[in-house]
Each structure stands twice: as structure tokens, then as C-alpha cells.
């Protein structure tokens, strides 16, 4: 019964989405208030129906209703409740429903909270959202119906992939989707602005929080995915340049550019068409991210739905959304003139330069990800592109980009001088040079690339702090701390966080050490400054797995810690996973993973690693996200929108 309710709710949502994509558009073109109001009602109702459908599916998963195909192939009664629930989106159909759910809820939010938007803009934004929603609801209903029934229903289901039965993976996909879909709002606003033919400060003030929120979720989602790979795949890698990782990195890079250029639109009214283009491209890359995972066009560990038919459908959606919006851009954007001019040394110019480098970095990742497809199309050769390519291309671009980051906040709007900004950055420069020297001395000249990374990290961190120092200098400290806007703290946190991540990445690439050996209980091995003692190896039984569990004692200096590492076997799906034992510290982690038992002996294969500063990689990402949150809670976003409503169409009414 619940399945049918869910199914009908989805069909109704599709009908509503189709109406939402046309009626308010017509209303906006004719200036008919009733038709525009219909768009708001449709968006709200559509959100309610999709929520109902999602609830029905989640209920079926939790209750193990194996008469539903998606449930039967992804849930087993022995799975803990939380993973039965998470199973809702741990499969193709359910994850697409989650995607649509987030989209619909965002649409509903624009309808409910968008009172301070110009009515015609709101109607058009909802219209565009309706089109995306209709496309994905149709995709869901026609190619991947989550409520398809099985007859006869099996007695028990197949298990959710054990690799996905992990707390991190419970929230990783929703976070990523919040990011991907959040950018759909920016896309809808960009397309609506192109149709209207004008962009004003109110537009930017509405778009920026959405972009920021999406960016925060995407940052957290990517960091979480990387952290999950680190502790679960058993060798401590944290980034693999896997196509699907790239698929999330590209919208992140582009979204970062969008975030900064929207700032310029909001503050200075410049870079308008550039921002619109970024809005379109960021969401397109999010779509391509979805497309990549699902089409099977690139083979990847993440591809749980390899089905070209679905791929063609999503390809059609991408061609429709991106192609039409880019065509609209080519047609309408040239007529949109930017308000204010800026000199070649100014904050606007700095942000433009940063945008160009982010764009280049995205292009490099894009090319690396799709090069195999291109070569396959041209010659029929199967190749793969790995880390060496990215080290050669991505790293230098990012190095320049990171150097530029510290300049941005130090530049003044409109006009500045190189000499002036140089003087303001004297101390960060000094710190970077000192860091470079120290790293070279301690670790040798052959690790100079990593030393350069450390110098960049120091540059970024001190550069961020310098923003505050400059602001606070000469004023009463307590007062200065209070009057500094939250957005400034956000900027400082985010830029410093980037520095923290860079430090972690540099240290991990250059200075990690590892040992692989067979250890018997009682044996002690030295790893860098730590000693590792294997205490016991025993068999344990979990809720739905059997495991070999090894207990270790790690001694670092005077402190000792107890660690366990497991190798789990899930009998239902007959698969194996690793739970690494990690002794996390500020300066580095000791990482222990066990392999097979030594044949005939009492020992067990142990892989041990020392990962210097690895935690900094994710701590930095968390700081960036926190910075985003601080910026998001700045008063300006709350009062700003209201003020814009009072002065409609602001100072930048465009042609």
C-alpha cells in the first residue's frame, strides 16, 4: 500500500512540476499575478508530494518490504535500523528520489520565503526549477521507478553494499546532493535573470546565500567522502582522482568561483554576465556529476547503476538544461552591461583572476576525467588518467591560485596599487619564506615541492590572519572584535582553512612512511617515533558480519594507546571490508590495517602507516565550511534582502 501511495505521489508531483514549469512563466510574461501565484502553490504542493513519496520509500526500507524491488536488492533483515534507513538512498532509485526531494524542498522554500523577491523574478525562478524537477521526476518514473514491485516477493533481501554500511556514508550522499541541488537555485536565478534581461543587487543578495549554503554542504560532503575512503579502504589514501570524486570536485571549484564573483555583483555590480555563466556552468557540472555516476560512461567503483539507457536520458537532461541555458546566455547576455568599472589592480580584478584560475583548474580536472571517453570515441582505445597527470597539470595551477588567495581580501575595491598591497602582505610573505627555509632544512632539498606546499600553507594562514590584524590595528581590541562583521570572520576562517588543508596535503604526499609485515601476537615493531605491539588476534561477531579483530598497543613517547583493527566478512553479500585502527594525533596518525592470517602460522599480515598531518586535510575543509557558515549568518544577508525590496531594482537596472 505505501508503495502505491508513494508512486501516486510521484506521478502527481510530476504533473505539478510540468504545470510549475509553464504556468508561472506565462504569468510572468503577461504580468498576470494569479498565474504567477499558481507557481508558488505548485512548488509548495510538489514539495509536499515528493516528501510523501520519500517517506513512503524510507518506510518500506525500514520495514523491509521486500515486495519492492529496490528494497529487496538493497536491504537485509539483519542490517541495523540506521543502515536500513540509509539504504533508502544507498541505491540508484532511492538516491535519485533523494535528489528530487531536495530539489522540490528548495523549490518550496523559494515559494514560501521569497516574498521579498520581485514577483516576476520569483515566478521565473520557480518556472526553471519546475523544468528541472519535471525532467528528473520523469527520469525517475520512466527509467528508475523506486516503487517497482516484485512478484513473488523474496523472503529476504540482498544486503546493502557493506562498504556503504558506515556512519560516514549515511550522511555523505545527502550532503553532496544538498550541494549539487543547491546550485540548481543559482542556475534557476541565472536563467530567470537572463529571461528578464536584468540583474540587480537584490538578485545577487538572494543568490549568494544559496550558493554559499550549497558550497558548505558540498565542502563537507567531499571532505566526508575523502575521510571515509581514508579509514575504510585500508591503505590510507584520501584522494584518488576517481571520476566520481572529480565529479564532485568540479562543481566545488566552479561553485567557489561563483561564490566570489557573486560577491562582486552584490557589492559592485560588476562581472554580471560572468556570474550568470558560472551559475549555469556550476549546476551543469553538478548534473554531469550525477550523469557520470549513473551512465556507465566511465567505469568507477561508485557506479552502482551502470545502464546506458538511463545515461541517454540524463544526457538529454544535460543537453536540455545546459545547452538551452548557454544558448540563452549567448543571446541575452551581450545586452546586459555591467555597472561599474574597475582598474587592473583592485579587488574586483583580483577576484576575476582567482575566477580564471579556478576555471582553469576545473577545465584540467574535466579534461582528465573525460580524456578516456574522448580517446575511446576517437580511436576506440581504453586508457585511464591517473595521479601523474593531475600532479603535472592541476598542482601548478592550484599553486598559483593559492598564491593569489591571500591578495584578494587585502586589495581595496575599485582601485589599488601593487606597492600598497605588497606592503600589507609583508608579514605573511616573511612567514612563507621562513616556512620554506625550515621545511627545506628539516626534510632536505629533494622534498622541495612539499616544502613549497608548506610555504603556501603558511602564506595562506598568515595572510588570512593579516586581514584581521589590519582591521583591528590601532582600535580598541574588544570593540574591534565585536564590530568586525561575521562575513569577515568567515573569510578569514575559510582562507586559513584552505592553508590548513594545503599543509596536510603537502605533508602527506612527501613524508608518509609505511611498513607491511607479518606479525605474531606479542611482537613489537618500530614505526617512525612510535612502537606498535600486536597484542591479540580474535574472531568477533557483529550484527551482520564476522570479523577478525587485532588489538594493538601504540606507544608514542610516554603515552600509550589501545587500537583495534578489523577485517569484516559479511556473509549475506559474501564481501569483505576493512576497518582500520587509527591513532589520530595533531601531528599525524598511526594507521593500522590487518590483512589475511599468515598461512600455517599464528601471525597476521599488518600494514602500518605513519601519516603526518593527515587530519589537517579534513580539519581545513571543516574550517572552510565553518567560514561559510559564519558568512551565511552575517546580518547583511538577512537585512539585505529586505532593503532590496524597499528599493526595487536598485542601482543597477540593466537593459
Amino acid at each position, binding site marked *: 500500500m505505501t508503495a502505491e501511495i508513494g508512486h501516486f505521489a510521484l506521478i502527481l508531483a510530476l504533473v505539478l512540476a510540468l504545470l510549475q514549469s509553464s504556468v508561472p512563466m506565462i504569468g510572468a510574461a503577461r504580468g498576470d499575478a494569479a498565474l504567477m501565484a499558481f507557481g508558488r502553490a505548485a512548488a509548495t504542493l510538489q514539495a509536499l508530494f515528493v516528501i510523501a513519496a520519500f517517506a513512503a520509500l524510507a518506510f518500506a526500507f525500514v520495514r523491509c518490504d521486500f515486495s519492492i524491488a529496490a528494497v529487496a536488492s538493497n536491504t537485509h533483515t539483519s542490517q541495523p535500523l540506521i543502515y536500513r534507513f540509509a539504504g533508502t538512498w544507498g541505491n540508484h532509485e532511492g538516491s535519485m528520489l533523494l535528489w528530487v526531494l531536495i530539489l522540490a524542498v528548495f523549490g518550496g522554500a523559494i515559494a514560501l520565503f521569497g516574498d521579498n523577491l520581485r514577483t516576476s523574478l520569483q515566478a521565473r525562478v520557480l518556472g526553471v526549477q519546475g523544468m528541472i524537477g519535471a525532467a528528473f521526476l520523469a527520469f525517475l518514473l520512466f527509467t528508475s521507478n523506486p516503487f517497482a514491485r516484485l512478484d513473488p516477493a523474496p523472503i529476504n533481501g540482498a544486503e546493502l553494499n557493506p562498504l556503504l554500511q558506515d556512519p560516514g556514508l549515511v550522511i555523505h550522499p545527502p550532503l553532496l546532493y544538498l550541494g549539487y541541488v543547491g546550485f540548481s537555485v543559482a542556475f534557476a536565478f541565472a536563467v530567470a535573470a537572463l529571461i528578464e534581461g536584468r540583474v540587480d543587487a537584490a538578485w545577487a543578495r538572494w543568490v549568494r546565500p544559496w550558493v554559499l549554503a550549497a558550497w558548505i554542504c558540498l565542502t563537507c560532503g567531499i571532505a566526508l567522502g575523502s575521510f571515509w575512503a581514508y579509514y575504510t579502504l585500508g591503505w590510507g589514501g584520501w584522494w584518488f582522482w576517481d571520476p566520481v570524486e572529480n565529479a564532485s570536485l568540479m562543481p566545488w571549484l566552479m561553485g567557489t568561483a561563483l561564490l566570489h564573483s557573486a560577491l562582486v555583483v552584490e557589492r559592485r555590480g560588476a562581472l554580471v554576465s560572468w556570474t550568470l555563466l558560472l551559475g549555469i556552468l556550476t549546476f551543469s557540472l553538478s548534473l554531469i556529476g550525477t550523469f557520470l555516476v549513473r551512465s556507465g560512461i566511465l567505469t568507477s567503483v561508485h557506479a552502482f547503476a551502470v545502464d546506458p539507457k538511463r545515461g541517454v536520458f540524463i544526457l538529454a537532461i544535460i543537453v536540455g538544461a545546459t545547452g538551452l541555458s548557454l544558448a540563452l546566455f549567448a543571446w541575452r547576455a551581450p545586452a546586459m552591461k555591467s555597472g561599474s568599472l574597475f582598474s587592473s589592480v583592485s579587488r574586483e580584478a583580483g577576484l576575476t583572476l582567482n575566477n580564471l584560475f579556478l576555471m582553469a583548474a576545473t577545465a584540467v580536472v574535466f579534461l582528465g576525467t573525460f580524456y578516456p*571517453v574522448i580517446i575511446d570515441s576517437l580511436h576506440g582505445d581504453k586508457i585511464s588518467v591517473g595521479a601523474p597527470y593531475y600532479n603535472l597539470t592541476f598542482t601548478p595551477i592550484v599553486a598559483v591560485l593559492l598564491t593569489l588567495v591571500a591578495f584578494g581580501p587585502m586589495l581595496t575595491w575599485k582601485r589599488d596599487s601593487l606597492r600598497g598591497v605588497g606592503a600589507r602582505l609583508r608579514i605573511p610573505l616573511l612567514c612563507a619564506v621562513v616556512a620554506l627555509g625550515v621545511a627545506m632544512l628539516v626534510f632536505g632539498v629533494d622534498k622541495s615541492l612539499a616544502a613549497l606546499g608548506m610555504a603556501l600553507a603558511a602564506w595562506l594562514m598568515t595572510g588570512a590572519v593579516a586581514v584581521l590584524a589590519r582591521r583591528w590595528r590601532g582600535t580598541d581590541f574588544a570593540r574591534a572584535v565585536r564590530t568586525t562583521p561575521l562575513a569577515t570572520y568567515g573569510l578569514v576562517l575559510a582562507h586559513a582553512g584552505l592553508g590548513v588543508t594545503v599543509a596536510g596535503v603537502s605533508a602527506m604526499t612527501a613524508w608518509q612512511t609505511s611498513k607491511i609485515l607479518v606479525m605474531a601476537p606479542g611482537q613489537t615493531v618500530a614505526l617512525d617515533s612510535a612502537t606498535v605491539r600486536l597484542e591479540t588476534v580474535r574472531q568477533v561477531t557483529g550484527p551482520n558480519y564476522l570479523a577478525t579483530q587485532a588489538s594493538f598497543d601504540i606507544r608514542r613517547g610516554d603515552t600509550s594507546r589501545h587500537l583495534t583493527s578489523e577485517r569484516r566478512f559479511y556473509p549475506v553479500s*559474501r564481501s569483505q571490508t576493512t576497518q582500520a585502527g587509527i591513532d589520530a594525533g595533531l601531528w599525524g596518525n598511526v594507521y593500522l590495517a590487518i590483512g589475511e592470517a599468515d598461512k600455517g602460522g599464528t601471525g597476521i599480515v599488518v600494514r602500518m602507516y605513519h601519516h603526518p598531518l593527515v587530519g589537517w586535510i579534513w580539519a581545513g575543509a571543516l574550517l572552510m565550511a565553518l567560514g561559510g557558515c559564519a558568512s551565511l549568518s552575517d546580518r547583511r544577508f538577512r537585512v539585505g534582502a529586505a532593503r532590496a525590496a524597499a528599493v526595487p531594482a536598485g542601482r543597477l537596472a540593466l537593459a
Partner: protein
Amino acid sequence: MMRLLYLLPVLLFAGIVAFFAVGLQGDPAKLPSALLNRPLPPFALAGLDAGTPGFGSATFVGEPKLLNVFASWCAACPQEHPMLTRIAGEGVAVYGLDWKDTPENATRWLAKLGNPYRLIGSDPTARTGIDLGVTGVPETFVVDRHGRVRYKQIGPITPQDWDQTLRPMLARLKAEA
């Protein structure tokens, strides 16, 4: 001139879509063998025990044959096994390469399920497997009468694979000079 610049994104995008469309035509699971239309690399494999002979690359002359890679530890092999028995029953010469496996385990496995192979070669270290470019088990090579690899099937042979691909191919190879 400025207008052209605004056209650039949509033009670039059209190019990318063209590549995607071509890429989608291909089957992502299809990994062409590097040995396609080339002779088998020279190898000689021992049998599962001292009493039974193994085989080598020299075996693959005279008539088209199948070389099936299997292992007792492989999960998909029991699934493929009835199909191999049927193929052998149709008079096709199927040779088994026991990959990364111990002869004892393989013997026990075959005793349980039955032995469809004309001869079995043991490759416990996967040395020959590397030369052949084996990516996993089961895999099946179609070798023509001159000892050249003509096709590689990845994964278990399904009845559909046999009826639509492998059997017609073997018939064609038989007819070839």
C-alpha cells in the same frame, strides 16, 4: 566580436556533447583483449597432479578451441559451470586454466561439480595469466586453428552469450581456411 565570445560556451558544450554521445554507444564492460588477432604467447602448464598432463600454447592448433580461466575460489565459476558442461557436451574442446589456485582445491572443486575440460593447466602463480592478460575469473578466450586469439569473453558465459556470440563465432572459425 563580443557576441562571438558569448557564443563560445554553447559551442564548446556542443562539442563535448558530441563526444558523450559517441562514448555512450560503446559498452563500458567491454575491455578488448590486447591479444586480439595475435597468436597466444608461448606457455606450458603442468596438470593438476603428476598423473595428468597439462597443456601449452602448442595445443591450440588444428581446430578452434576455447580456453577458459577458472578457479575454485571464484564465486561466479560455479554459476558458469553448467554452461561449460553443455558446451563441452556439444563437442567443443574446452581447456581449463586454473588461475591463482592450488591443484588440491581445484581437484576437489572439479570432483564436486564435474570436469568439463579436455585438459587442465595449473597456473598457481598467475605467470601465464599475466602473459594472457587475464583480468579476473572467469574469462574465456576463443582461439582459432592457428593459435590466434579471436575473442575474449569477460565474466561467466551466459546461454545468451553462447547462442548469440560464441557458437556462431566458433562455427565461422571452423569454416575459415
